[in-house]
């Protein structure tokens, strides 16, 4: 169970492969992975950059609790959450979530749970920089498929 916040650009696939090398070979049969990447458009506007504010200390604690919750609900061997904070450019990964399990169903379901719980509970806030020089805080949408920032 690992939580990492990155103030520099993160390499999601390197993070996942490095983490997997720390697991006992043969102890898992599935890894489900989600990567969220910053778009250059949102709500009909061109977005030139984004700043992710967070609550240091609480963010790490809440993400660790989310991993604990996933572990009580699914038989997962391990999980990984990596999240960017600070200034982000379009095209850069924002978040990576991975879950390892013996079988794919638990890995898929745990991975989705981790991501949805993160969006609901982790104290992170996106502020977008717009093409005209303005800035706006992203509002949470009741529909997760239209929430700002990544391409769920």
């Amino acid at each position, binding site marked *: 169970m690992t939580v990492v916040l990155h103030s520099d650009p993160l390499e999601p696939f390197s993070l996942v492969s490095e983490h997997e090398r720390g697991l006992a070979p043969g102890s898992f049969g599935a890894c489900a992975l989600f990567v*969220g990447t910053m778009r250059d458009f949102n709500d009909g506007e061109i977005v030139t950059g984004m700043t992710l504010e*967070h*609550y240091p200390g609480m963010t790490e604690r*809440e993400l660790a609790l989310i991993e604990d919750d996933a572990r009580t609900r699914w038989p997962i061997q391990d999980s990984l959450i990596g999240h960017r904070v600070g200034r982000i450019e379009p095209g850069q990964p924002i978040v990576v979530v991975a879950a390892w399990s013996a079988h794919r169903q638990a890995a898929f379901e745990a991975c989705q749970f981790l991501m949805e719980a993160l969006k609901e*509970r982790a*104290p*992170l*806030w996106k502020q977008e920089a717009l093409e005209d020089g303005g800035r706006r*805080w992203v*509002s949470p949408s009741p529909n997760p498929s239209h929430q700002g920032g990544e391409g769920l």
Partner: protein
Amino acid sequence: MSITVRYFASLREQLGISEASVPADGIHCVADVWQRAQPDRDLPPRVLAALNHAHASLEDPVRDGDEVAFFPPVTGG
């Protein structure tokens, strides 16, 4: 002794302050902390609270030395 109050994101910008300290005497719950720290403002709708780095309700009890945070709905991921 006192209670630390922190604000984040759009709420921090609206209030023009990120952190403050308020006297703990007479404070019983999270809602009391807001009233002490922002006596001229009602708690904005949808604002969330945390107590010592954990999500909290306005009724949760607060003790001397605690850290209370107020912030808008989260938008990470």
